[in-house]
């Protein structure tokens, strides 16, 4: 039975390994865009959001709440807070357009309709790539796709960080949450590199690390959701990790303490990212319509798909690096 399965799949698997097409396309430079909000609004939004997260909006929003009618905060079932995101949005747009001067390539590979899983490389000690991907699809894509990005669960050990990531659209990475989001018709962004991705040293930048056990592919096959490979260049330079300290990390519930040029030397100021030039490329969707949901259990098939997805993203990264 086992052997039979292997021979049947072999030709198929050989076909998958290698890269998927869809590289190239026009580069769209977005750094000339006018920001919707002025510097005053950006700073006040940022300060408000900081105060909200530190006091957990206990006090700030209290003043507005009347005795009888209380203004409803719009928090969805995964903790995404539209009001909070709007406060931060000005700052993120400033980072995206003016600070990182992001250019986008191959955005027309993202269809107008349907549900997709975006899979990307991961980089930078304090990753911004999830939020930047969200801004790209929200602002630049004509369909104004609103995505959620999946985040590692160690962040929920930390005070403030977990709440903050939840409020701006992060969801803990696990199969159940991903399936629930897809079922509701919400796109998700996945970073299969996980902690390995953001903890890689500066000298290893843009070399994709481990790519999980193919959980993304399994999810895509089961739900028949196409996967769009995304390459993000620039995130690695925002917080270049010089070395990692593992000694005291356990006290804070962290897997390691990253040391960058500015962090922890400058304290919280060290959390400001370096101005690197960002490029984001979207590849052609990988579709799994022909596969049956049972194929998600075929680990040989899954890992070959996973490998080809990793190759595709690596090729896209290399191409972007040569263009930069």
């Amino acid at each position, binding site marked *: 039975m086992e052997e039979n399965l292997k021979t049947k799949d072999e030709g198929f698997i050989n076909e998958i390994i290698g890269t998927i097409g869809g590289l190239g396309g026009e580069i769209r430079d977005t750094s000339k865009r006018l920001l919707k909000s002025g510097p005053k609004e950006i700073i006040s939004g940022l300060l408000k959001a900081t105060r909200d997260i530190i*006091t*957990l*909006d*206990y006090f700030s*929003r*209290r003043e507005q*709440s009347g005795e009888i009618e*209380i203004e409803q*905060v719009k*928090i969805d*079932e*995964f*903790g995404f807070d539209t009001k909070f995101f709007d406060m931060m949005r000005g700052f993120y747009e400033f980072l995206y357009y003016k600070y990182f001067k992001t250019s986008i390539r191959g955005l027309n590979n993202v269809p107008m309709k349907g549900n997709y899983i975006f899979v990307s490389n991961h980089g930078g000690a304090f990753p911004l790539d999830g939020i930047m991907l969200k801004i790209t699809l929200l602002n630049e894509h004509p369909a104004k796709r609103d995505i959620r990005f999946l985040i590692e*669960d*160690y962040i*929920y*050990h*930390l*005070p*403030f*960080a*977990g*709440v903050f990531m939840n409020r701006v659209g992060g*969801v*803990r990475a*696990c*199969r*159940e*949450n991903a399936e*629930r989001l897809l079922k509701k018709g919400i796109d998700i962004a996945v970073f299969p590199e996980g902690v390995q991705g953001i903890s890689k040293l500066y000298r290893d930048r843009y070399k994709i690390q481990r790519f999980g056990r193919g959980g993304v592919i399994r999810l895509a096959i089961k739900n028949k959701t196409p996967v769009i490979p995304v390459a993000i260049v620039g995130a690695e330079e925002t917080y270049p990790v010089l070395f990692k300290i593992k000694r005291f990390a356990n006290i804070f519930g962290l897997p390691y303490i990253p040391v960058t040029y500015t962090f922890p030397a400058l304290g919280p100021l060290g959390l400001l990212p370096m101005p690197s030039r960002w490029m984001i490329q979207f590849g052609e969707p990988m579709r799994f319509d022909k596969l049956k949901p049972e194929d998600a259990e075929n680990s040989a098939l899954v890992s070959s798909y996973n490998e080809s997805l990793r190759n595709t993203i690596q090729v896209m990264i290399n191409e972007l690096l040569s263009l930069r």
Partner: protein
Amino acid sequence: MRVLRKKKRKIAITGAFGFIGSRLIPLLDSDDRYSKIVGIDIKSPPFTTKKLTYYNIDLTSPSVEGELSKILSKEKVDTVLHLAFLSNPISNIEWVHELESVGTYKLLNACSIVGIKRFLMWSTTMVYGAYPNNPNYLTEQHKKRGCPGFAFVQDKLEAEKSLLEFAARNPDFKYTILRTSTIVGPTADNIFTSIFLRGYVPVVMGYDPLMQFIHEVDVIDVFKLALDKDIEGEYNIAADGVLPISEIMRIGNIVPIPIPYFILKNTVSFLWNGQLIRFPSDFLNYIRYVWNVDNEKLRNQMGFIPKYDSLEAIKNFLGTRRLRKIGFAN
């Protein structure tokens, strides 16, 4: 099954005059399908109804198996509803262990002596445990990790485990576990409502998990429905929607006192060791991490749709709290 339905049912309720029992008995009393209610409790009944027979039996006493089986066979009981669980933790954890964990085991033994085939049990969604790597919505299939160090949860988990083991040994034994999430409402009284009843509440700084509730009216309806329709299996009982703790504080005009986790943890465990507080520091996980459950099985398989969502339920509770404060309710 049809025979069972036509025959009038005789039901025994342990912890009959606790929170759920005392509200459920009047409903069962007015229902023709139930001919007898056997109330088992150490509390004397606060009311009398025509179908109710009261027995003062302590589940922690050593000879309880014999006493229970005598009563169950004398009254020809066919269904047991096990509600003898505490909704508030107390410092006397040895007694609670005897009551909840050992008591359930003894009750099950009594059932097997008499040959009772139908058993319903109340539990709480706290048995899943609050962990940072929980998915946002736990389903019935998830592992019940409990909360080591918090006997209040561990005893309920052990009670569930002994029921599942018993059911595995007896294939024709039909069981139901109804796990309620935090019950709120005008008269609800549990660990969370007693926290939200204060004007000032210490909270863990930097954590704001999403909370889920169920209104007491819905809880009673679920128990009635599960009895009426002979529902089998495990069910998570929670309302739709979630809201962060900070939102509850805001609605209830509660002043939170944010304290860093390691300070709060040490303070709470100091107070717990001195028996000045009723819960250990492990409880703090429940206000740090998510432990919400998915109510899809309740909606689709049991066919119960909660009338209140989490926000309405908590508003109803906090509204009564306000009325009570200014003296309009007691």
